[in-house]
């Protein structure tokens, strides 16, 4: 017997841990989508300095490893800000996790938004222009409805990647499922059933989400 029942014994604590993962996921996804949208709008601006600034931001933030950024935002940024503002600041672990994962995601989301918008055929825009429609109306009525349909599958899979990345946040003391599991492993010295159980829990969660994505994707087609 590999004693898989031990995972079941701790289910309440582990469930609360998983909820923390979901919380960080939702918060960082929202942050990433908002910042990513802003970055995409700037990236497509007609003003060259704005375009360049946005392109730099996206390139830099996409290259940042999530783990490094987690530590940096949790440990380094409060120190820098404290010096600057001559006060004592510290970041809540969940806030740091949201910022780190949200900002990295914003880079990926921005590029997905851009690809979706640019995939709308130029001819559709020209037809709207030839009819006398203005830029805002063209974007709202012609480009975005098509672009959103095109970018949904990629956005969904990027969000699933973000959900998996939330398993890193225990390193900055966020009490997520990995944090709880590690504490229990230290006490019980039974890594096999505990880590296996966690992996299975995540697998099931992502399977459910992926099949939901599949259904949304089909309906949108």
């Amino acid at each position, binding site marked *: 017997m590999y004693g898989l029942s031990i995972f079941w014994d701790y289910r309440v604590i582990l469930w609360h841990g998983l909820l923390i993962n979901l919380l960080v996921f939702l918060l960082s996804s929202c942050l990433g989508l908002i910042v990513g949208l802003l970055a995409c709008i700037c990236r497509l601006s007609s003003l060259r300095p704005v375009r360049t600034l946005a392109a730099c931001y996206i390139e830099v933030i996409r290259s940042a490893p999530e783990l490094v950024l987690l530590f940096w935002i949790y440990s380094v940024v409060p120190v820098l800000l404290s010096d600057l503002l001559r006060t004592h600041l510290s970041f809540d672990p969940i806030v740091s996790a949201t910022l780190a994962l949200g900002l990295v995601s914003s880079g990926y989301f921005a590029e997905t938004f851009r690809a979706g918008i640019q995939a709308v055929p130029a001819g559709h825009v020209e037809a709207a222009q030839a009819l*006398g429609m203005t830029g805002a109306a063209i974007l709202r009525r012609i480009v975005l409805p098509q672009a959103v349909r095109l970018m949904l599958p990629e956005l969904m899979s990027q969000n699933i990647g973000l959900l998996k990345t939330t398993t890193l946040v225990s390193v900055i003391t966020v009490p997520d499922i990995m944090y709880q599991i590690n504490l229990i492993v230290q006490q019980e010295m039974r890594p096999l059933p505990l880590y296996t159980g966690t992996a299975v829990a995540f697998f099931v969660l992502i399977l459910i989400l992926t099949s939901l994505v599949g259904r949304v994707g089909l309906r949108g087609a």
Partner: protein
Amino acid sequence: MNQKAYPAPPAIRVVGMTKYFGTVPVLRGISFELERGKVLSIVGASGSGKSTLLRCLNYLEQPTSGEIWIGGQSMSFGANRNGARHGPPPAQIARIRAEIGMVFQQFNLWPHMTVVQNVMEALLRVRKISAHEARARAERYLAKVDMLDAAGRYPAKLSGGQQQRVAIARALAMEPQIMLFDEATSSLDPELTSEVLDVMRGLATDGMTMVVVTHEMGFARDVSDRVMFLHQGVIEEDGTPATVFSDPRSERCRQFLSKYLG
């Protein structure tokens, strides 16, 4: 009989228009006038600048130099403080474009809207009429191109000829002064071109001012009031179909036509 004090301005007036893509000249010194109610066909080899000329008329391409008047309204452009060329303000361009209908080679119907929604869209956003009125007008023009039955269908379910007829209805519904056709039948299978050409013929008979870029020499000869032959960005021949088709002065035009007419 009442005589007007001033004659109506021509539907289109172009003076000295040139267009460069980078350093490549595509249009060189194009000048012509087109009266209201007349049909002008523009023919020429690929790369002669025909489509570019058409697209400059509704400012989808910005001419490098020259002047364009649409119905007496100037699409003027000048130099700003830095000496760089700039076009008319976007609002003015949009206003003039609303008076010019354009039909594209690739139809360019919006796939996420039904046929009737495609035709109604500009009526709602540009003419700003009520939804009820827009639908009535859309259905009227769809009936005119014999596509009313397909009103609730999506463009992807239609044949090329059907899509192009819807595209014509979409442009016509705006009740423009001028209709531009950019190789409207070139993407169609041969058996589908006649249904579109018939619609275009009908418009000409009804007195629409039309500029038609086409390879359909039969249409150019039988329906146009005037034919222009373009070669490497220059108008080499400009006259009635009778003159241009039977006795062109330009040797290149003669060769071009002989290929098409046999």
